[in-house]
């Protein structure tokens, strides 16, 4: 092997090889430079906003005379609320779908159906948003909203006066549709990581098919499901276009799930072009910075979980 390596090192000196290597290094350098420039341009763009309001920008909520909020507070709340609604819907549905496709459905059915679920991921967010805006929003304003308000106990979540269908709730529903493919795909990966031997162990002890899933597969996939969860959160927090179309974009903390609100992303989408140069625009860019921090926190947690899982699983 040493001989091979020496021969390799000698050959690497050839100009052709060196050029190919150089191209790759230039590419890598360019890539890292772009990432740095991206982060820098956002921080620089937001600098005036933080310079004026300091860290208060993170949670402040009052409006200035132009109607532009100077704090990220209402938008952070909106982002967290819509994400929570989306997760409440997408996590159980996603895990159930994954269990059906990976464990319970016969293979001839699971194959084509999982392709369909994957296709949801390919649908552009603008199309989902359009459907939400022109179809679901009227439906929510006319039927779903009044129905939810009448619910005992739960109705409190949907209090206040109805103002059309555009609402935090609808934004959450739309987000749920959008993060579902991520949730399903990653949960299925987690299920696939559970050894056949574990399933057989449970089966051989007299477990029913569902007990095998419940007792061996889901516990074995738990860390993977957790990672699927955090990555779905990351997607939900960062999605802007579809939410902007259905949430109503009111820069205030929503008083009910049926009230309009705004998320960090949706407010940037609707206000960036309209904001005047200078402080108003810096504040919008500042919202992007806050969004970046939020997604970094979530994705960091997700990456940590994934890494932990791969080291715990070990490589054969």
């Amino acid at each position, binding site marked *: 092997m040493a001989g091979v390596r020496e021969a390799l090192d000698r050959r690497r000196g050839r100009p052709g090889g060196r050029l190919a290597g150089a191209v790759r290094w230039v590419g890598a350098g360019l890539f890292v430079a772009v990432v740095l420039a991206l982060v820098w341009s956002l921080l620089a763009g937001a600098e005036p906003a933080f310079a004026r309001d300091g860290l208060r920008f993170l949670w402040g909520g009052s409006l200035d005379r132009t109607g532009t909020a100077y704090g990220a507070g209402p938008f952070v709340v909106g982002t967290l609320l819509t994400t929570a609604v989306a997760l409440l819907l997408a996590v159980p549905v996603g895990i159930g779908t994954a269990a059906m496709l990976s464990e319970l459905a016969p293979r001839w059915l699971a194959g084509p159906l999982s392709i369909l679920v994957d296709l949801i991921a390919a649908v552009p967010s603008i199309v989902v948003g359009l459907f939400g805006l022109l179809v679901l929003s009227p439906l929510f304003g006319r039927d779903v909203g009044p129905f939810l308000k009448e619910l005992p106990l739960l109705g409190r979540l949907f209090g206040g006066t109805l103002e059309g269908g555009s609402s935090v709730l609808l934004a959450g529903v739309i987000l749920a549709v959008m993060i579902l493919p991520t949730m399903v795909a990653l949960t299925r990966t987690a299920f696939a990581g559970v*050894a056949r*031997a*574990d399933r*057989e*162990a*449970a*089966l*051989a*002890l*007299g*477990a*029913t098919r569902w*007990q095998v899933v419940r*007792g*061996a597969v889901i*516990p*074995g996939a*738990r860390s993977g499901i957790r990672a699927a969860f955090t990555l779905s959160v990351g997607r939900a927090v960062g999605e802007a276009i579809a939410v902007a179309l259905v949430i109503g974009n009111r820069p205030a903390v929503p008083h009910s799930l049926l009230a309009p609100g705004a998320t960090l992303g949706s407010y940037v989408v609707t206000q960036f072009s309209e904001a005047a140069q200078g402080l108003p625009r810096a504040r919008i860019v500042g919202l992007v910075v806050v969004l970046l921090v939020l997604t970094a926190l979530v994705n960091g947690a997700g990456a940590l979980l994934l890494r932990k899982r791969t080291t715990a699983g070990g490589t054969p």
Partner: protein
Amino acid sequence: MPSPTPDTIPTTVGESAGLLGRLAGEARPAGDDRAAGPSEIAVRLSEVSVTFGGHPAVRHVTLDLPARQVTALVGPSGCGKTTLLRAVNRMHDETGATLSGTIHLGELDVYGPETRPELVRSRIGMVFQRPNPFPTMSIFDNVVSGLRFNGIRNRALLAEAAEAALVQAALWDIVKDRLQHSALELSGGQQQRLCIARALAVEPEVLLMDEPCSALDPIATGKIEALISELRSEITIVLVTHNMFQAARVSDLTGVFLLDEDRVGELVEVGPTAEVFSSPRDPRTLEYVTGHIG
């Protein structure tokens, strides 16, 4: 199945007598500590064939497994031993293999139309090639997992059964102070004994062991073999192994599987272990045995 007459046994018998003698010497005298007389049959296989996707893996196996004895199934890899073993507790239900012939567990028709596979499996335990404790469970939860699957929730009962099973598997003294630790903290051999304890906790009548030592070192293997000898008096054991000496050391009966001319597994010969190794009736057995102990 052709039954050869003694004069068809090749002359190599004389040359290999030493090796066969060694094997036969290791074999325990048949029925040493049991009352004489015809023993009851725990599992009865008759004309069993298993087919995967149109290709038969093993066929026409007729075999009686006497209660509270160890039956070893030996043979080259790919000759259907494991396939046959997994047919006994209906593990093939999930893999799409088809089975013909009948298997009876006592009075129960294992593949009968009214028979629930879950109930069959809770009466027939299984130990696999590689130790497979549930990786996310504690030692205790592993041992009682079978009981929980079968609907037992009473804590005192679970604790009692866990202790009994761990003592039976010669593991109690090692793990009694760390029952809540992860099962993955144990060594490979200990994990395999934990899997045996897990199977025993359900109090099966039959224990199927599929090359349980193939992933273990010699010392751990010795402990498992000692365990099998201990359990012999209480439970019917079927042991698939490729190790002829292991079969000779721990089994009462030995069945030899070989590939027939169509490359399908068949049971060539079955009988008391000492007899199968010292004076096989079938020339193919002799050829296989002498070829695999040198």
